[in-house]
């Protein structure tokens, strides 16, 4: 039963694991740059969920040509295209803030920053 689910729902379990890895990095990594990487891993996990939902057996990419069907669903692809671009914008802003924090405090270590903040 469990093995059965694993062979038919494998991508969804990968989604859960990617979300977990991303969350762990965001919470646990002391380095601010690595926290941004964790945020991106979390994001990609959600992308995998959407793209997997759009897939259908024997489906072709949604480029409409005579007699090429069936196609996978185009709508989740569009949403994820938008999300990828928004994700890059988010990363750019986050990294700019990281660089700014470094130029103000001279460290990227979370614990050191907290100490500096309390002093």
């Amino acid at each position, binding site marked *: 039963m469990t093995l059965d689910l*694993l062979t038919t729902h494998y991508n969804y379990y990968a989604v859960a694991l990617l979300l977990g890895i991303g969350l762990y990095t965001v919470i646990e990594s002391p380095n601010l740059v*690595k926290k941004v990487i964790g945020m*991106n891993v979390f994001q990609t996990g959600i992308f995998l969920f959407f793209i997997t939902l759009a897939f259908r057996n024997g489906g072709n990419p949604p480029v409409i040509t005579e007699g090429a069907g069936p196609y996978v669903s185009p709508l989740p692809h569009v949403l994820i295209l938008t999300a990828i*671009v928004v994700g890059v914008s988010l990363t750019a802003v986050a990294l700019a803030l990281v660089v700014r924090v470094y130029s103000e405090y001279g460290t990227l270590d979370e614990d050191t920053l907290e100490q500096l903040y309390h002093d």
Partner: protein
Amino acid sequence: MPITLVEAALLTFVLGCALGAALLEDTLAAVMAFAAYSLGVSVLWLVLQAPDVGLTEAAVGAGIMTVLFLLALSNTVSPDADRLFEPIRWRTVALVGGFVLLIGATVPALPAIGDPNSPVVAGEVSQYYLANAYAETEVRNAVTAVLAAYRGFDTLGEGVVVFSAVVVTLSVLRREVVA
């Protein structure tokens, strides 16, 4: 669809790279692991018949994103790593494990991968786009048709987000020069 060898290998590669990015102590090594991760994910999109997403992920995720990270690294100094991996904090692992189990518990409720009757694939909206996109927009690629025509306002919103990100990045990085 039962899992194929290619997909199993890809998923293993992707999860391994994600773990590497999470645990490698050296920041440059973590960024490289993340670049490999993005590349693996973009191949995964191709396997899932999403070439548009795959191209974007390869160009933006593996390309631009890595450049951004390297730029951030070259403007900061991280202390030299004295070990390969960070120590694993088991309390956080337990917390995150609980979260993963919670998400994992919802998986049996989802339709099997590739089910042609799943609500997303068989749904009215998807089928409408596939049936009418070419007739109404004369664009063969349904993803482009939806992105630029049917959901054009969403894409305009995306443009606003990118514009604000550029404005914020520039204003955050600008040094105030007090003469």
